């Protein structure tokens, strides 16, 4: 089991990772997500032993690494899948995957499982991006690491490939039974792949929980906005019900909020119908194919976003009737 306690990393005088605590289960896939510069890649490099840490400790099975006594990367038994693949250009696929293996059985296993059998004897330069990333994954898993770090493994690939390859990687990690920390800046990838999701902001972990809870009960407005389209509607919280200008809704207080709150509304928590005497005015509408996304200003002056079926049609300036249709409790933040 991987255990990280009070980990801090400095670049010069700047602290880029602050007081990180993590524990990783036996075959768990943990997604670390956050905007550019939030310290997510730095965390991976610190866990791998590629950069020195300033405070705290990292522990995995037999070893323990501290700022005073750092364990070199080759002694950590961690695997890493790099954003730019890091395949050795002078070696063939087979030689890459078997880099330090005496017994090649496991290499054969992963080459076969990831559909690379026909490419064994070619060099990385002649592979496509998706194939390169599969080779990198096969190389990592064939060396039987105690855990795997993935540094934005899909960011250099095109959109169509991303979708299928991310599932392929998750399946392979689960099949190997190896825990993994996977860094991404794509919140959709984080929510769909992870057993748990950690959201980073400015070097600090804002929330670490299951994807469902991170999405529906975000620990902060930052998390709420980062994980998806978020609007906030003012209301009064009383006994797990929130009274708003659009009606009553079940509410769940975040961080002990009570009284005057802002209720987190996702675009699918509301319904919208054109109505002469409606409670809101359409500001703009975006056609998305299957759906339409509306921005509507309500009586109190707040703007909310609503996603409807493409059949519902209203133009900017039209009055519409909004209603809260959700049955699950909505996150209520104390009014700023």
């Amino acid at each position: 089991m991987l255990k990280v306690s009070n980990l801090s990393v400095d670049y010069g005088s700047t602290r880029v990772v602050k007081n990180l605590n993590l524990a990783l289960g036996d075959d768990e896939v943990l997604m670390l997500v956050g905007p550019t510069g939030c310290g997510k890649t730095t965390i991976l490099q610190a866990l791998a032993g590629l950069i020195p840490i300033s405070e705290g400790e990292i522990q995995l099975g037999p070893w323990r690494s501290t700022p005073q006594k750092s364990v070199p990367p080759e002694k950590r038994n961690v695997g890493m899948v790099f954003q730019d693949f890091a395949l050795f250009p002078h070696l063939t696929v087979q030689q890459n995957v078997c880099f330090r293996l005496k017994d090649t059985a496991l290499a054969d296993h992963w080459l076969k499982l990831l559909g690379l059998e026909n490419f064994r004897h070619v060099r990385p330069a002649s592979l496509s991006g998706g194939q390169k990333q599969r080779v990198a994954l096969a190389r990592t898993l064939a060396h039987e690491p105690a855990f795997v770090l993935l540094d934005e493994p899909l960011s250099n690939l095109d959109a169509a490939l991303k979708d299928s390859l991310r599932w392929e990687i998750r399946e392979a990690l689960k099949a190997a039974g190896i825990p993994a920390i996977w860094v991404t800046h794509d919140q959709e990838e984080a929510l769909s792949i992870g057993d748990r999701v950690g959201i980073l902001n400015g070097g600090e972990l804002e929330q670490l929980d299951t994807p469902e809870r991170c999405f529906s009960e975000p620990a902060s407005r930052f998390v709420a906005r980062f994980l998806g389209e978020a609007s906030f509607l003012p209301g009064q919280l009383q006994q797990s019900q929130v009274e708003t200008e659009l009606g009553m809704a079940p509410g769940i207080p975040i961080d002990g909020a009570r009284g005057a709150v802002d209720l987190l509304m996702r675009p699918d928590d509301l319904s919208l119908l054109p109505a002469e005497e409606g409670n809101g005015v359409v500001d703009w509408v975006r056609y998305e194919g299957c759906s339409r996304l509306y921005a509507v200003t309500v009586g109190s002056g707040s703007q909310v976003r609503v996603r409807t079926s493409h059949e519902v049609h209203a133009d900017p300036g039209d009055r519409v009737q909004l209603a809260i249709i959700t049955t699950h409790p909505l996150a209520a933040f104390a009014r700023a």
Partner: protein
Amino acid sequence: MNLRPALRWPASYPLALVIALLAFVPVGVLVGLASDSAELFDAHNLKVLSNTLLLMVFTVLGSVAIGVPLALITAYVQLRWRRLWLIVLAAPLAIPSYIGAFTLYAAFGRGGEIQQLLGWPMPAVNGLPGATLVMTLYSYPFVMLTTRASLLSLDASLVNAARTLGMTIAASLWRVVLPRVATGIAAGALLVALYTLSDFGTPAIMRLDTFTRVIFVEYNAFGLSQAAMLSLQLLVIVGLVLFLESRVRGSKERPGRHLTLWPSRAQKWLMFLVFTPVIVMSIVLPLAVFGIWLLREGAGGFDVAYAWNSAHASFLAALVAVVLAIPVAHAAIAGRAGRFMERLTYFGFGVPGIVMGTALVYVGLQLPFLYQTLALLVLAYVLRFLPLAVGSVRSTAEGLDPSLVKAARLLGASPREAFQRITLPLTIRGMVAGAALVFLEAMRELPATLMLGPTGFETLATYLWRVYEAGYFGRAAIPGLLLVLMSALGLALMLSGERRAEFDVTGK
């Protein structure tokens, strides 16, 4: 990757510092030697200074006049055999200018080869005009290549925009393109200036009293301290040019679409008329003259030992240079201080061979165990050509993706194993290329070889020189052709894309 606390120096620093300081040994020696001399500056000196500067200025002007149009043509115009034209037009750079000077001198003038063969009276090529002609013919490719590189990095949309706004192609090249490659032209022009200042063979053969020629005369007259004083004066000018060069900043533009021009038939002929005289004078003429001599006189007087001596000394120099280049290149990548050390070693490339020779002759006189040894000659080669090796090694090491070493370490390889299995195989090509460059440069080196070669140690270059001095021109055929062949190999290496060090000696 830095696994150590930030304050500790990278392991390569101490070694790199020693090597970098070694580059300044010649200057220290010269200062000590020149302090014995009473004559700081006299009337003859003024003449030498003006000759040197005039030759430099005229050669720079000539090189820009030839190099810039050729750069425009080779960069933008869609011609058949484009690549071949480029290679042929860049080729004079690889040929030592003393070969050109020697053959032009022999071909022109009363009783020259042209008159003997065709019966046409020809004007003599010598003095300042002759030296300018030769230096221009063999150094314009510096301007052509740096300008071409700048041109290729420009976005063609601007020219297309200018043309859609109603500007002719010539006007848009003049007003939209050339101002943006001014730094490229300047960089090439400064390289030409440097090359001209340090060239020994051409002014010597053209009988023009420049610093390099006068230093050699003083040296032969046992006026070593006067030679040192002149060397220091030359170094001051070299230092000024190097300083200017460090001020030239490449302009960074977003790379864009590539401009291609399709010429009409008449324009093609016009370009051909520009190309032909340059190629005839710089390449065809020397080959023809050597060919005539070979037919007329055969291989008389030539001894294979000359070629062997050249190769032997150059091979040693190449080996030593690459071994010394490795710590310097690693220091240059490791940090800012290391980068500075690397730049110090570049100083040696600016030191003219004749100056290096003067300094090391004195070192040999003071340290008897080095006097008249091959080691001293090899040291001169290494000090002069180390930057070529450093540049090659550094550029391949820089091209190495740092995550490869990290990946190897994470797969369980120790630093040593990662170096042996990843870093070394991926950088060996740079080392070989660097060694080959040093080898070829050392093969062609003339003045330092003349001054430092042990007694009886004749190389291709020194033999060519003795033949010229003795007036047995015909015997120059074999060594001359061998040197041209070496130059061709050097050119092939240069254009293989492995290396750009020679055009990028200042590390920009």
